[in-house]
């Protein structure tokens, strides 16, 4: 079963790299959306890796990242709206 999850984690890497590449190129608006997409992929990747390596406790990393994404992206959006 872990092989399937490892394959899925490897399959999630190219979309993650596309989002990371987009986060470094283009206008501020495009970069902001790309960061949002990259954080979504990162959460999915951490879930897949938790099952791939059979480490039940590492699912907390995905949960923590999902909870920290809210204030992080919110701050970026407010900065983009008002000051940048």
């Amino acid at each position, binding site marked *: *079963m872990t092989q*399937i*999850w490892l394959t*899925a984690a490897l*399959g*999630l890497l*190219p*979309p993650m790299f*596309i*989002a990371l590449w*987009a986060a470094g190129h283009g*206008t*501020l*608006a*495009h970069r*902001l*959306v*790309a960061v*949002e*997409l990259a954080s*979504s*992929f990162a*959460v*999915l990747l951490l*879930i*897949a890796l*938790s*099952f791939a390596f059979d480490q*039940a406790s590492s*699912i*907390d990393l*995905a*949960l923590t990242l*999902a*909870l920290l*994404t*809210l204030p992080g*992206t*919110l701050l970026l*959006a*407010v900065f*983009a*709206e008002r000051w940048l």
Partner: protein
Amino acid sequence: MSAITGIVLGLGVLAAWLGALAFVRLATALERLHAVTFVNVAAGAAIVLAALLTDGVSSRSLKCLLLLVVTLPVGALLTHVTGRALHTRSGEWR
């Protein structure tokens, strides 16, 4: 059960690829927000379903379910805030 898990997981990865390709294909930032929402909902739901099929009811799979329950409203909120910020920046809404 393993085959069903593999199919659901494959659908999740496919949704992630589709979201990434849509992200590249769409032109404006506001359009690209749709790709982010698609990844959050489709890929997130499929991968969490695969997690439930793999583990059954366990603390890990319940945390995955909690993750989905958190991600859906938070993703909607972030998409709204980002869209509003981009719209305001473009000068059409001041």
